[in-house]
């Protein structure tokens, strides 16, 4: 999937209210905070970040 396809889908959701597009956060620190502390949170990021609070696992 290309970035513009994702923008297309989320823009459509935001302006028809057929669903909730993802909330956008301003920094990696905020992302980590929210993913860690909110129930059922899923975050999308662009690259691997090293932080001692992150637990990495691979699914096979």
């Amino acid at each position, binding site marked *: *999937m*290309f*970035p*513009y*396809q*994702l*923008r*297309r*889908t989320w*823009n*459509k959701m*935001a*302006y*028809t*209210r*057929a669903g*909730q*597009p*993802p*909330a*956008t*956060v*301003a*920094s*990696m620190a905020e*992302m980590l905070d*929210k*993913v*860690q*502390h*909110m*129930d*059922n*949170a*899923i*975050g*999308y*990021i*662009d*690259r*691997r970040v090293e932080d*001692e*609070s*992150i*637990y*990495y*696992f*691979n*699914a*096979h």
Partner: protein
Amino acid sequence: MNRFITLMLTNIFIAFLLSFSVCAQEISSELIMDPPTQEENKLWEGVKRTWRDDIQFHGFLSQGLFSTSGNNVYGQSKDSLSAGSTEMGLNVSYQALNNLTFTVQGLYRRAGAITGDAGEVTLDFAFFDLNLLNLQEGRIGVRGGRIKNPWGLYNETRDVAFTHPTIFLPLAYFERSRTLLLAVDGGQLYADYSTSIGYFSFKFNYGWVNANDKEVLTAIVNDPTVSGHFESDPSFVTQLSYETMGGEYVFALSYADLNMSYQAKSTDDPYAQMGADFNTFMLSAQYNGEKFSFVSEYSLKWNEITDIRMGVPDSFAVSERWYVQAGYRFLDNLQATLRYDSAIQNLKDRYGKGVEAKSGGLIPAHMAFTQDLVFGLRWDITPSWMVRAEYHRVHGAATISLLDNPDLSKVAKDWNIYALQIAFRF
């Protein structure tokens, strides 16, 4: 079922995902996370309460600038410059329960003489959304209130500049009768279903459309002195769409049955018995590749206007609209678009000779068709800001606003549009 909260980092899209749903699978850990302390948890609880994830706001804004030869668009653009198109919207949604959402969107719109210089504020949509069945593969639900009509690829978001490729929508989205197809006051049944081969979505809207529109009425009766207005009778709009995962290919079939009757102001109104009945379908296909995009839509519309007035025969015309469009993405945020667009008002009078003769020359033949060749460039500066520019070479004038072009004898057959638009969204 748990409600998932999704978050996104500015400017950045999927690369990998932190999901708890894969925990059940075999995992190999690389780093162990310390569980947050009790104290940290308490601190966060306070913050969490002020950050309402059940209320969401979104908005958009666009401003257009137009210069044309021959005919006016969005105000006095002919051999001049018009900034007569402004659109601004704000919506808020409140998720009251896991399966119940309330949402409302207000729209401010300025569109040449149709809305006047001051523009108009309308309630664009306002509905509740009740999810009746929510499974992993799909969902079924109902919405009630004022709901946007799913017609073609762009009608539901036709006023949101970001969601369509060019400043002017394709002719199939007929700007002159936009209010008719915009939304219904009534209900919607929707169903989505995900399969291994793609995603199916079905919507059925039933209710009353906004038929009280001067532009529509003027276009039908060709009489500026008409004093009454149209009122909607029960109508429906429905769509079945299919897209492959991620929307690389999108196909849709839309159908609308719109009915309205004329409401006279006085007893001697010659149009008192008039009724209008529109049936229309649209076939849509879209390909979204990495560099190239292709879109095509084809629509036929049966226009039945009965009991217009004494001595005027009922009118049955079939209109045809279609376009093919190619897009090329030089960069992820820079796109060029080329479109060939065609609108024929009456397939039995393709070149308008009949309507010109019948009106005694009052309605020029070239008001019966439009062919439009469009070239546009779009630059998404950031996910929130966008500018685009386009050029139209137009043959025919079926789609112009009669309120912006009141003198039919001056309507030009071959003309040009130069347009520029800046848009913001959040």
